[in-house]
């Protein structure tokens, strides 16, 4: 029964099947689940965070009328001394920690390159601190830093005759102690990446340099370093971003103390927003500021690099 309606029906089915198989062959089909999930999980909280930061939500004061307060939270965040201190602490922590890690990592990676026989073994060994839970690392070092029974003080007393250093309670030492822990845990990361980069380097420039009679130092400065730069930058940026968000280590070791000497932005926002206050709006504004801060630092670093 060749009903024209029938024909139309079959035609449209054919078209839909064709279109779906075209869709199936296109990128969207594959990407879609991931995109949707990511959108919900990250974009939505992000926008809600922004929304929160311009309101005056406060969990601990449910009776307060929820009104739009514009940029008041941001103004407060930028003038409050404690908040400014937290930014300063974070900046100091990140700068010192990442610098030490990069330099140390580079040195060790170079040494490992010379001992190429042992390289895989070393890499396997060196990876371990990175994989440990940050919180456990914090705990471990807290035990070791204990003024009376910690191993660090004991060794110092034994070898250098320095006694009773209060690593985590002394206001001037606390931040450095935490930085030391971060360096201990994450220098392997730099080592790993730099070492991989060193492996990948082409041999020809080195041979040319040798032919031209360059000594070791010159080779390093003019050839190794520039070749290594892109990878170095990637690792550097990676660590920068990660270190901006330290909560685990610090919380377990000092919980922001003594006083507020090691209170990073993350810890501050947590205390203000969740555990000791309910000012989620204010905390949101702080966290958004942190993100802006991160992006600013990132752009500065990338620009500096591109100029070179």
């Amino acid at each position, binding site marked *: 029964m060749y009903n024209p309606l029938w024909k139309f029906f079959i035609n449209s089915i054919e078209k839909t099947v064709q279109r779906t198989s075209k869709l199936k062959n296109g990128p969207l089909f594959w990407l879609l689940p991931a995109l949707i999930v990511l959108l919900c999980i990250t974009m939505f909280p992000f926008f809600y965070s922004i929304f929160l930061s311009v309101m005056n939500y406060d969990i601990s004061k449910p009776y307060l009328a929820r009104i739009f307060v514009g940029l008041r939270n941001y103004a407060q965040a930028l003038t409050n001394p404690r908040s400014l201190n937290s930014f300063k602490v974070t900046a100091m922590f990140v700068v010192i920690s990442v610098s030490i890690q990069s330099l140390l990592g580079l040195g060790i990676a170079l040494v490992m390159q010379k001992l190429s026989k042992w390289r895989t073994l070393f890499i396997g060994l060196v990876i371990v601190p990175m994989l440990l839970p940050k919180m456990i690392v914090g705990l*471990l070092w807290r035990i070791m830093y204990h003024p009376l029974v910690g191993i660090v003080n004991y060794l110092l007393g034994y070898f250098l005759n320095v006694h009773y250093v209060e690593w985590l309670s002394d206001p001037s030492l606390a931040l450095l102690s935490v930085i030391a822990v971060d360096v201990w845990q994450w220098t392997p990361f730099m080592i790993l990446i730099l070492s991989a980069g060193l492996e990948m380097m082409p041999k020809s420039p080195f041979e040319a340099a040798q032919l031209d009679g360059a000594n070791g130092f010159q080779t390093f400065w003019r050839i190794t370093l520039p070749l290594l730069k892109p990878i170095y930058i990637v690792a550097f940026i990676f660590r920068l971003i990660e270190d901006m968000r330290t909560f685990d280590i610090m919380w377990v070791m000092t919980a922001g103390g003594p006083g507020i000497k090691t209170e990073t932005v993350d810890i501050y926002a947590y205390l203000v927003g969740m555990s000791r206050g309910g000012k989620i709006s204010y905390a949101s504004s702080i966290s958004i500021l942190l993100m802006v801060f991160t992006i600013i630092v990132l752009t500065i670093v990338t620009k500096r690099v591109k100029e070179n």
Partner: protein
Amino acid sequence: MIIFIICIYFPIYWLVVMSFKQQVDIVSIPPKWIFKPTLSNYLWLRDHTDVVGGLKRSLIVAFSSTVLAALIGLPAGYALARFNFKHKDDVAFWILSTRFLPPIAVLIPFIVIWLALDMFDTYATLIVMHLVINLPLVVWLSSKFLKEVPVEVEDAARVDGCSRFAALVRIVLPQAGPGLAVAAIFSFVFSWNEFFFAFVLTSTKSTLPVVISGFLAHGHEIKWGSLASAAVIASVPALVLVIVARRLIAKGFTQMVVE
């Protein structure tokens, strides 16, 4: 070099040793290098605390999160590796940029959501939260590794009649295997080690790191030995992975760097 290795490993060695010491031996000065080892710390953990539960929960959360991230992220990575479409670089950058978000910025809105849905203290909560970090990581890593696989083999298979999906499973995946395994390993380790989200979002049914942090709040004498034992238990995945997958990780890392 040797000094460096010693520096790296001494704390770890100290931790493991401490977990086998009795309390008396731990707090004695000078520290006892030779002592009578005991399992009492581990036993105490099993009898008096929720470490076993924490272990179980950590395992469930980490495993599910990794599997979920892999299921969703792999196809996305494949799309980024193989197709060329408008705004592709933008999409890739955006996926990567989700790492810039400080966890707290994500956390606060989610607290509101989970409160409304009454889903505090559940597995699903943590699994979804961990996806925030795991998913971009998997997508990025898998797109990199999948790009390494030459297209010709896959095209040949498709010419022979394979659908894209079948080609992906049979041909591309085995070749990119090591790289993808690295991505999965990193996701798992991250989820296992994760503390912040779990700390805030769970109370009675928490993952291992949070359970351990509960030991600190005892007020009186902190049982260092048990703390150390718990820490050793929590570090087990890392150590196991290193032993088992040492070459894999090294190779994966190397490949990852070659942009």
